[in-house]
């Protein structure tokens, strides 16, 4: 089964070979419109996979919130690291 040749830039990330990674990153659209479009695509993928389903459970939103907690922790790490084993808070 031979695949038709596709331009490198248009392949999905998982299909790009390691050697082609540089070309792939160089060719992607980093203009503000492009970034917004990619955020939109990512959002639609997540939404349609986990939330916009017939019997969506708490998992879809819970994963989002867990990611939010993780990012908040990272964001505040510089501030929180002073709290580790302080004697007086």
């Amino acid at each position, binding site marked *: 089964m031979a695949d038709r040749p596709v331009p490198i830039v248009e392949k999905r990330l998982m299909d790009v070979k390691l050697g082609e990674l540089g070309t792939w990153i160089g060719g992607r659209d980093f203009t503000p419109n492009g970034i917004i479009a990619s955020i939109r695509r990512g959002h639609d993928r997540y939404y349609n996979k986990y939330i916009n389903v017939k019997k969506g459970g708490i998992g879809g939103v819970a994963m989002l919130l867990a990611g939010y*907690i993780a990012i908040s922790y990272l964001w505040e790490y510089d501030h*929180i690291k002073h709290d580790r084993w302080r004697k007086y808070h």
Partner: protein
Amino acid sequence: MMTSFFDQFMSPSLLGIPLMALAFVLPWLLFPSPAPRWLTNRLLTLQGWFINRFTSQLLLPVNVGGHKWALILASLMLFLISLNMLGLLPYTFTPTTQLSLNMGLAVPLWLGTVLIGLRNQPTAALGHLLPEGTPVPLIPVLIIIETISLFIRPLALGVRLTANLTAGHLLMQLIATAAFVLLPLMPAVAITTSVILLLLTILEVAVAMIQAYVFVLLLSLYLQENV
């Protein structure tokens, strides 16, 4: 470096981007926009049900002229409730603990209701400054008092929200620290403290929802008087 319990309310930033930006965007992510379908997914159905119930309940006592405010009141309610509840998650930042934000929400909206009243029905709006049936000698004093109470409304709206949320977060941090520190020393007391912490967390969830509701309710009340 001296740290205090109030450090949790400082606006943390990474590479110059404040965490407040992320905290603001998140409510938008959690409420999907309605889809052009009759039967939607569970999240959207729940959201639509809640918004419908809330708006119809809120706008019951308001005249038809005030129904223009339905959109902003409903979105304000959703915004506040999601900000408050998200702030209860660990490591997150609650923007509504910042007085600047709450005053920024309260003052323009309150001023809007006052100006609408003064513009559309100036006599009635000014008439609110004097309750019916006051004894004649008291009239001057009462007008001054009512004016003061009118101008203190935005301050009260903003400070109420800030104070309630800040106090709740602070109490949770204090009791959690106490429970954590007491654990190696007096386990029994630590368990009691943990139970108190659990109850406090439940209270905080309730407060988060109630405070958002009260904010919007009072605004609708001010609207009702003036529209």
